[in-house]
Structures are given as structure tokens and as C-alpha cells.
């Protein structure tokens, strides 16, 4: 009985962890390319949640079709944020870019709160329940995890196999050198911010498939993304996915043994500890 609970919690944590990882991938990509910690990360996830919710309730779209809209919107939004807020401060001290992205955070939360209030929303989309022995998981969770893996794989292919993706990696590795060989770094930076935001919005949409949310939920997931990127190493894409799974497993397994209120203590304690002991993360910082 006890081991069955453990197994079910592990599966649960694994599934949500992959989605956390996808969100963190967006954060870590932006940091890896331009050394900017995007404090508008959480609200972009919120917009992804509302995007999929509104396209289902107002436009009557299937959630997966809504997800495509969310991804496209996220890309455009990210490019917009880059042009308006980040572009001018990209070479300024860190505080400037932190505050610039935080100002976007405030604006999104402020407007979204005025429009949607802070009440809970729920996208009641049912994909049935998958059963395997003692384990029963909602289909939406499984679908979200699979889609997250697919998007992460697509990103990997984009970064390693396409010319544009190689541009992104070149700018991340050495912007000045990339410019010297004729890579349009200004446009690549805007695109990278767009992709990072797209990943965050998509992850938000995937979370909204199976969990209730409010305008302020993004803030909670933003903190989770911070923990994850530090676990995996700031700027390391694979680390983000691994870190997401680790966080998901902690959230799934710890409540089996202790009160659930100890989960954040463990998460943030680990977060600070890793920053202090091994700031490059468990897998080492990378590009």
C-alpha cells in the first residue's frame, strides 16, 4: 500500500516536473544567450494559462489548437518585450535588466488583474484517466508532459540543426565574434527572447490543462523556475529539464513522508545551498 502511494506520487511528480522543466528552459535560454534574468517570466506563464483558457471558452478552440496560438503569441510578446524593455539595457549592469524585465512583470500583472480579477479559473478539459496497475493519472497530465518533451526536443533540433539555431548558439557563445562573422546579433537576440518567452507561455498553457490558476499563479511558477535553473546550472538547457524533474519529484514524494508545508522549505533551502556551494549548478553552467 505504502509503496503504491510512493509510486503514484513519483509518477505524478515526474509528469509535472517535465512541464516545470519546459518553463525553466525558457528562462535559462534567455540567460544563456544574453545574460539577463527575465523577471517577466512568471506573468508570461500566466498569459499562456489565460491564452489557452480564453481560446477554449471564448473561441471554442480545442486546447491543443489553443496551445499553438499561445506559442505564436508568446513568440511575438517576447520580441516585443525585448524591443521595448531589454534592448537598451542589455549591456548595462545586471540591476538595470532585472528592473526592466520586472517593470514588464508589473505591467502585465496590473492590467491582467484589472481585466480578470484574481479569482480561480479552471479549464475543465477531460482526457480521461490512464490506469496502469495501482497508478491512475489524468490524461491531461500525461498529454502535457508528452507535449513538453516534444517542444523541448524541437528546440534541441532547432538549436543544433538549423542555421538560425546555430546563430542563436553563436551569439550566446560570443556576441562580438558572432557579429564579426556577419550574424545579425540584434535580430538574433530579439528572436532568442521571443523563443524563451514562447517556452514560458507554452508551459503555462500546459499547466493550465490540469491545474486551476489565477492571475498571480505565474509568480509561484516563476519562483519554481528560478529554483530549477539554479539546480541545473544557469544557462544550461539540459540542466533545466533535469532540474524540473528533480523539483517535480520533490513535490511529489516529500508529502508522502512529511507535511506538505515542508516542501517549499526544502526547495528554497536546496536552492540557496546550491547557489552557495555550487553556483554553476548540479550539471555545471553551460550555454
Amino acid at each position: 500500500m505504502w509503496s503504491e502511494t510512493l509510486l503514484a506520487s513519483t509518477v505524478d511528480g515526474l509528469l509535472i516536473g517535465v512541464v516545470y522543466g519546459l518553463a525553466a528552459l525558457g528562462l535559462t535560454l534567455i540567460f544563456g544567450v544574453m545574460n539577463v534574468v527575465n523577471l517577466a517570466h512568471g506573468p508570461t506563464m500566466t498569459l499562456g494559462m489565460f491564452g489557452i483558457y480564453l481560446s477554449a471558452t471564448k473561441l471554442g478552440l480545442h486546447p491543443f489548437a489553443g496551445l499553438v496560438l499561445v506559442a505564436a503569441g508568446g513568440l511575438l510578446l517576447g520580441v516585443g518585450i525585448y524591443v521595448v524593455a531589454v534592448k537598451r539595457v542589455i549591456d548595462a549592469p545586471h540591476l538595470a535588466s532585472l528592473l526592466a524585465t520586472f517593470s514588464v512583470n508589473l505591467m502585465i500583472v496590473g492590467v491582467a488583474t484589472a481585466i480578470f480579477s484574481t479569482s480561480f479559473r479552471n479549464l475543465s478539459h477531460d482526457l480521461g484517466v490512464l490506469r496502469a496497475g495501482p497508478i491512475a493519472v489524468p490524461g491531461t497530465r500525461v498529454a502535457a508532459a508528452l507535449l513538453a518533451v516534444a517542444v523541448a526536443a524541437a528546440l534541441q533540433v532547432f538549436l543544433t540543426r538549423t542555421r538560425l539555431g546555430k546563430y542563436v548558439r553563436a551569439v550566446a557563445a560570443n556576441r562580438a565574434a558572432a557579429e564579426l562573422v556577419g550574424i545579425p546579433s540584434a535580430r538574433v537576440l530579439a528572436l532568442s527572447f521571443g523563443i524563451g518567452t514562447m517556452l514560458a507561455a507554452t508551459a503555462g498553457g500546459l499547466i493550465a490543462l490540469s491545474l486551476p490558476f489565477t492571475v498571480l499563479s505565474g509568480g509561484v511558477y516563476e519562483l519554481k523556475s528560478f529554483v530549477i535553473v539554479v539546480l541545473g546550472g544557469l544557462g544550461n538547457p539540459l540542466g533545466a529539464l533535469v532540474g524540473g524533474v528533480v523539483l517535480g519529484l520533490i513535490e511529489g514524494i516529500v508529502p508522502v513522508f512529511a507535511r506538505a508545508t515542508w516542501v517549499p522549505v526544502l526547495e528554497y533551502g536546496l536552492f540557496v545551498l546550491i547557489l552557495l556551494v555550487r553556483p554553476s549548478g548540479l550539471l555545471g553552467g553551460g550555454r
Partner: protein
Amino acid sequence: MGTQRRHAPTVVAASLLVLSAALPALAGSASMRETMFSVLLAIGLAASLNILLGYCGYASFGHVVFFGIGGYAGFYLVAVQGAHLATAIAGGGLVAGAFAAGLGAAILRLRGPHFALATIGVNEAVKALIVNIEPLGGPTGMNLNVSVFRAYGGAAGMLWAAYGTAAAIAVGAVVLGGLVRTSRFGLGLLVIREDEDAAAVLGVVAWRYKVGAYVLSAVFPGMLGALFFFKQGVIEPAGAFRLDLSVELLVMVMLGGAGTVLGPLVGAGSYQLLRSGLLTSDLEVLGVRIRDVQLAVAGALLLLVVQLVPAGLVGWARGRWLALRSRPA
């Protein structure tokens, strides 16, 4: 520079603060007092953060942790130990300072975004930990019995006493900021801000200076936390460790001008007044009530400051003044 001119900004800041703090008392207005209380609180916190952020260049995103820890320490002393408010404030400052001293040497090894993230993590970790500590009230927190206020002249008398205390602490924080700015210690901090590695080569023992700045920037927030939550009569983890308040403090310091003595005063004062103005205004633009989107307005303001006047209001004005003076006649 002579001693008088060196201390001129501090004297101006302290006098300005005392004069404006006296206004509600002279007018005998309770609503004015409450507005000014929030302004004084913000000034005290911003001036403290400025010591670390402005002088030393370390962006603490979770500075509110000292406010919360001081608040909890003070509240525990009053509610459980039956201590006087003065003891509680001293205790709050002491505990916050000790926490900074213990944490500082480790956390200040991190730079840039890693430091910023770590301070956020510390704030969240402490908040999550207190939720699990039953003697501190756990997730629901603690309440003060109203009878406690009797020793301070009842609820009304307590509010005036708290106001006066807040003014004194805010003046203390601003004066401390001025003294640090003009001291040899402050010079060491500025060198660290400009180039930490070069500072080390010049013989500035960086970690000692940084920890010193960290502790100094934690003590007054701890005292203000003890005072604030005493006045509220209630404390709970979600209200004591508000990350949004923490970032608002950064905005105030940046708005006024990081690294200047008058900056935190100007930034915190104008930010709080603007905010309370927005919150109470019935202004409508394009059918949207400004009150409903005050967060977004604050965000837009921040964006403008970061992009256009990164030196802040005071820094910008000083730059203009110096440019005027140096122009040949």
C-alpha cells in the same frame, strides 16, 4: 571638501525628513499621519537598502527578509514575553543584524544575478520555514491582545507613538546612510562597487566591507519590522516576507538615485505619495480607472526610469548641476 559641505546632503535630508514628519502632528490629522507613516517606513527601508545597493553595488532582491525577521522577533517579544515596544524594536534590529552577519559572508561571495537570486531564495526559505514553526504561530501567524496597547495610551495613543518612532528610525537610517557615504568605510564600498577585483588589489578587504554593509543595511529594516507589525497587531508569514515590497524598495532607490544620500528620501517619498495618489484617484483614461491599474502605472514608471534616467532623480539633477558649473562662462 570641508566637513560642512561633506555632510550637507545628510543635514538637508535629515531636516527635510523631520519637518515633513512634523506636519501631521501639527495638523493633528490621523489620515495624514497614516499616509506619512507609510512614507517614513519606505524611506527607512530604502535608505537602508541603499547602503548595500547604492554604495556597494549588490542588488538584494529579497531585502524584505530583514523586515520580516525583525517583525517576527519583535512580535514574539511583545506577544509572548510581554516586552515593551522599545525592547521589541531593539530586539528586531539585533536579530536582523545577526542574521545578516551570519548569512553575509556566504551569500556575498555571489555576484550579479546569482546574488539577486540567492536573496530571493533566502526570503522564500525563511518564509516557508516560519510556516512550520508552531511557537511563531505557523501559517496563521500571531495576534496581539488589544489590551497590550493600554501601556501606550490606548489604541489612539499607540498610533501616535508608533508614528514618532517611525520618524526617529527613518531619520536614523538616513543619517547612517550619510555617515557611511562620507566615511573611509563608505569609500571602500564605492571601490567594491566600481571594481571588486581592483579593490582587493588595492588592499580593501572586500568581504569584511561587504558584510559590514550588509549588516548595516539589515538593522533598521529589522527595527521597522518590529514597529510595523506591533502597530498592525498581527503578523503572518505571507504578510511579513512580501517579495513585491522587496522589489518596490529597489524601485524607490533607483527612482531617487542609487548611491546618493538624498536619493532614497526622494525616491521613497515620491513613489509612496504617487501610489497613494493613484490608489485614491477617480481618474479615468479611455474608460479605465487608474486605480485599477496602479501596478501597471508603477511598472511603466519603472521602465521609464531604467531606460531614460538610470542615475535616478537626484543623480540626474546632480549631473545637470555639475555640467552647468563646469561650463566656461
